[in-house]
């Protein structure tokens, strides 16, 4: 099988996929940029905190730095002029983009014929990819809700007063790690998989493989209770087994997260009250279950852990 550059080009050059291609370049760049700044700032902070004289004063903790400079600057003009510049540049990019790339319209919808692959807009492809691993109700309703609610809850859960207005890694290790896992792994990577890896029939095509509509794969989904040898028609046994495994797994994960936070992040544990702590642990556990479930499906073909007549997990 030769490496199919044509297919790569088709996928990359599709007007639909231009944003995600840009994103694949921009995200590493900004990641690199942010970390570069963060490391420099961290170094400065360390330097300042090592100097008792300077540490006493409330200094600007970011580069560029000079002890004699103003500690704070006015929004106007020092911030707004940069924002204005950014706005103009973004406008120029959007105008040029819209001039040279037309809206990627396709054929009128045909109720008798479903397109294959049928794909959501690029920014939703991560969610669509989740459908492979979860019950539609979980992937399409519950998880997006958790994402929204979780994002809204962050300010109320975050007890760390440091790191406002400047890049830093040392002062916000936990927040940055959590963000990178949630955004990069659970959103961006899934969107990329949905865009470039999932071909006709939502089958898995490695880059360089031809998206052949006639490809047939043999894939049998099993449920965990089947692996455990419980017959499908023993509904009660199946439900109880799944419930015990699922809730047990959640409890175990919760315990692991709890111990880890207490041990590794005593500051966080100390600063949060009980309700904040419960929610933090809960959200972290949920985030952790997604890749676990994906691994079960991709590596072991296990579709559901908990099968009930009403819902599947």
């Amino acid at each position, binding site marked *: 099988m030769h490496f199919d550059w044509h297919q790569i080009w088709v996928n990359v050059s599709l007007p639909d996929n231009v944003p995600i291609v840009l994103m694949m370049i921009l995200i590493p760049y900004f990641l690199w940029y942010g970390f570069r700044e963060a490391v420099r700032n961290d170094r400065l902070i360390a330097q300042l905190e090592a100097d008792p004289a300077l540490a006493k004063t409330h200094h600007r903790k970011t580069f560029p730095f000079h002890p004699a400079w103003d500690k704070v600057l006015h929004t106007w003009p020092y911030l707004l002029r940069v924002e204005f510049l950014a706005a103009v540049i973004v*406008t120029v990019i959007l105008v040029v983009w819209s001039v040279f790339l037309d809206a990627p319209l396709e054929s009128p919808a045909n109720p008798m014929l479903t397109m294959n692959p049928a794909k959501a807009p690029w920014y939703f492809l991560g969610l669509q990819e989740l459908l492979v691993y979860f019950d539609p109700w979980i992937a399409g309703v519950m998880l997006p809700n958790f994402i929204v609610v979780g994002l809204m809850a962050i300010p109320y859960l975050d007890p760390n007063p440091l790191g406002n207005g400047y890049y830093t890694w040392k002062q916000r290790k936990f927040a940055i790690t959590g963000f990178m896992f949630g955004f990069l792994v659970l959103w961006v990577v899934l969107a990329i998989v949905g865009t470039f890896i999932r071909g006709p029939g939502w089958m898995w095509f490695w880059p360089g493989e031809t998206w052949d509509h006639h490809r047939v794969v043999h894939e049998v989904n099993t449920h965990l209770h089947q692996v455990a040898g419980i017959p499908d028609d023993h509904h009660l046994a199946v439900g109880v087994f799944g419930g015990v495994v699922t809730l047990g797994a959640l409890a175990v994960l919760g315990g692991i997260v709890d111990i880890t936070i207490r041990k590794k992040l005593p500051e966080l544990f100390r600063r949060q009250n009980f309700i904040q702590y419960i929610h933090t642990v809960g959200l972290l556990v949920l985030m952790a279950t997604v890749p676990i479930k994906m691994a079960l499906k991709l590596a072991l073909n296990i579709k559901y852990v908990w099968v009930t007549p009403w819902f599947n997990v």
Partner: protein
Amino acid sequence: MSQTETAPPAEPAIPKDPLVHKSYSVPIALSMLAFVGSLVLAVVDEMWWRRPYKAIQGQYQETYSAYLEKVAAKRRNFHDNVLLRVAEYETLAQTAKDAAAAVAERAMDLEAQLKTASAKSRALGNALKEAKSEIAALTYESEHKAQSAGNDDVANAPEARKYIDEIQKIRDREVTYTWTATTYAGGNTETKEESATGKVGPLLEVAMELETAKATLQQDLGTATEARAAAAKAKDEWLANNLGNLAHALENADDATKKRIAESGAARYLDETAVSLSPSALDGLRRSVDQIPHSWDIFRDGAGQALIHVSDVPLFRGDIKQIHIKEAANWVDRCTTCHLNAREPLAVTVEGMKRVLAETVTVPGATPEAGPTTLEGWPQSKIDSMPLDLFKSHPRPELLATHDPERFGCSMCHNGNGVAVTNTELAHGINHYWLQPLYPKEHSEAGCVQCHMKDLHLPMGDRINAGRDQFRRAGCWGCHKYEGFNTEVDELTALGGRAKEVEKAIREKTQRTDNLLALQGSLSDDDAAIAKEKPVNLAERNALTQQIAQLRTEQQQIARRAREAFVERQRVGPNLKDVKVKLLRQFLTDWVRDPRAAHKDASGNAFRPDTKMPTFRWWGDADEEVKDVAAFLWQSALDPQDFPEYRLPKPAAGDAKRGKELFEQTGCLVCHSIGTGAEKIGADYAANLSNLGEKDTPEYVARWVHHPRERLAAYDPSKKPGARDVAGAKKPGEGADPDLVWSQHVIMPNFRLSDQQVADITAYLVGQKRSGVKYEEPTWLDDKKRFENGKRLVLFQGCAGCHEIKGLEDEKGIGVELTPEGSKPIERLDFGHLTISAERGVEPLKDGKGLLEDAASLFTKDQPWYRVRGFVLHKLAKPDIYDTAKYLPDRYGRLRMPQFKFTAQEIRDVTTMVIGSVETKIPETFRYRPDDRGKAIQEGWWVVKKYNCQGCHQIEPTDVPALWNVPFFAEKVDPKTRDTFLPPTLVGVGYRLQPEFMAKFLRDPSLGGGRDKPKSLRAHLAVRMPTFDFSDDEIQKLVLFFQAMADQPEVYQPSVPKPLTDAEKKAAAAIWKAANCIQCHVVSGSAMTTETKAPDLGHTPKRLRPEWMHRWISDPPGMNPNTAMTRFFGEKPGKDGKWRYMTELPELKGIEADHVDLMVRYLSEGQAGK
């Protein structure tokens, strides 16, 4: 600032804070520039890049204006220097001049008088103006005063007295008036001042008289100059008519004029200047092109002319031109935005434009002093830079005449995206997602199909007609359902279903009637309540009886139509139930394997390489499969053991030489061919009959030649498949069961040959054998074990779609229905493993492997073919192509369509038909909805094509019947002899023949003569019209078709000619004798002579329409230039409008009647030859 001035420099300098001091001016300035630039980019994109038509319209203006200027100049030159000097025009001009001269004197005189009267009337009017006004005012006063006093008698009212006296005074007032009097005498016009004086009263009367005199003079003048005006009009009309027909003018020019034309070099203008536009019209056209109006132009003057021409700036130039059809769901087509000349009145070709633009033309000046102007030819590079292809006219203006673009737009027929003007790809819909891409040029007629699905023949659709013809002749409809083809099968299914329903209804209603009857008896009269039921019961029974009668009628109609449908039904291939009696045992097997390559002789020549039967593919052990199929066919065939009538008698000994002559001269070669390679003669409508001795038994050939459609065993449609052939039934005319069918599903007609002729032809055909072909003895044919597998294979391969096979009579074709094939989503077409190649433009047939004829020429380029068109093209060229690279251990999973031998053009034409077969988006009201006449033509064509009428006859004047190419007849195709020795043309036959006769003749062309007297009307012809065994419905369709084609009403009302008086009878007989009609005609089968070359006139009373006869006899060559019949009556009707016989005959004295009419009545009364 002060700080820097006063601070001591000792303090270490603090570096400036970049966040505060860094200047952003440069980035902001640059980004603002980029911002403005992006806006400019957006404007340019919107106004120029996305509107390529602006540039095109500019180019069009330049090109077309230059073209028109030159054409108009050349045209004017031609008009002034050549056309006006054509002899005919000069004659007309002279006539006009003479006419003018003839009335000159009188006209001048009258005109002078008229002028004088007018002048006098005007002068008098002026002189009386004041007095008239005063009188009017005084009259009003007098009436008003009298009326106010309550006195209606104004004349005697005292109140009015004063005013009436006043009026009288004015009437007595004297006035003088002066006028210019014109007199004409002896060619001189003189004018003189005259004056007169008179009293107002009498002068008022004079003025009225003058008006009357003027009118009279005007009238006199008109009458006097009538001839002059008519001559002038004739001259102008000739000019107007011939402006559009320069060729005609040239043809009719005398030699001197021709010479003058040749010298002027005008003849070469004819091609592109032969337009129906005068030079001034061309100038007008040019003006309209020069001033492309535009809404951008601003500040208009009072006349609406723009004062500021913004449109002169290319960016603001141009308009989207669109056709908006509200009734068709707001259909919008903007094609003419770029295809600017598509609908212009002047027919322009690319070649014509190139030639004219390159030419240098000299235009004579308006006055001799001004001198000629020279219009320089364009340099070639400039011509090449213009998109001339966009500026040509629609190549088929006659199509636009019936499909007005104003009503139909462009994309209804051509497809494409009519709304888009952004670029060619979008506008033409050459985009993966556009479902109706523009039909490529070679398939442009595909657009006809969506509305003309039922028209087998379209008057202007050459390619689509060819496609459908191919579809019909290759027998695609055997496997594929398609609207209009093979309809009898579905009809029979529907009729069968309905018949069952009707039968059930009759049963139920009869049952109910019986029940009611039983109930009736039990109803007692004693009880009043029950007695009331009696009439109700009776009423219901009566209603039921009526309904049952209606149902029985329907039952009869169903039975009749079912029989007709069985007669009409046609199959692509021969009846395979006959193989046991028909074929030689050893022939069958190899033929099944590969008909085109079967039974090769020593030098590798196959038995019938040009057969229509396609080659099927055999997998696995091909030998065994083919043997199984052959064994099944052989064993399933009807056995003479079971059907005594299957035992055919040995044909009588025949003379092969005479048989050859008959075969070549009776008309067999109109459909069949014989001979191979260069020796092949005849047509490909039916099989090539070479070497028939290797294939068929003589008994069967004899039987077939004798009457092909006659079944060997009767056929009972009501029985189940496999049991339909019934033994022992009598034949039609021998008291046969009317439910039985006696007609084979073939179309070959019966030639009514005598037994000896049949024997001769049989001897000739069966005597044809090649030498040195080895035939193996087919021991396997009777192997019963092969039967089941053979049947399985036959069912899979779909043999029963084309052939009648015992037990499989009702099998449907194995192919997919093609009626909506063109609108199938591409995802529904299985390209197999070639999907990716098709999408990416890899041509799998580029190597030409496995392609027949010149099909490889279709697949030379690598280009994307993931479209319905590509699918069909590849499929037709190589039907198994989509099995490529498939692992198919199961032979029943494979593609079945066999390999046909199509040429590239045939493939293209059938593709045109298939891709045009779509579920149309065009609203119902826009599709072709034929009236009765149109329907008759539509249905008639199916019958005409089915029976190959055009093989012998011309149906349309442009037809070239196959008979004309058969060697024996080819020498008689000369226009002088064509009508005498070849079958008659059927152009206008619906006007010639009475419908009843047409039907009678179609049913039995021998008109009762049978095999003994097989020829009836034109016994002198070598060919004969065969008996086709049409169904009654087909005969009706044909009669209506011919009438409609000749524009005759559906119902014929014969005119009843006045009976001949004795004197007239004598006169007519005298003409009959004098004209020697009997020399060429015969009457009621009177003896033929070597001079006989015209139809039998004995049938005339029932056969010919009198109105046609009248036209025909008065001018035969005028109606049919190929006829041998000449004019016998004066060149034109006499002054009384009556035709006269050319020579004086004593019997004609005192005969008042029109002599042609006399002959019509004579013939219509059947008096001829008596």
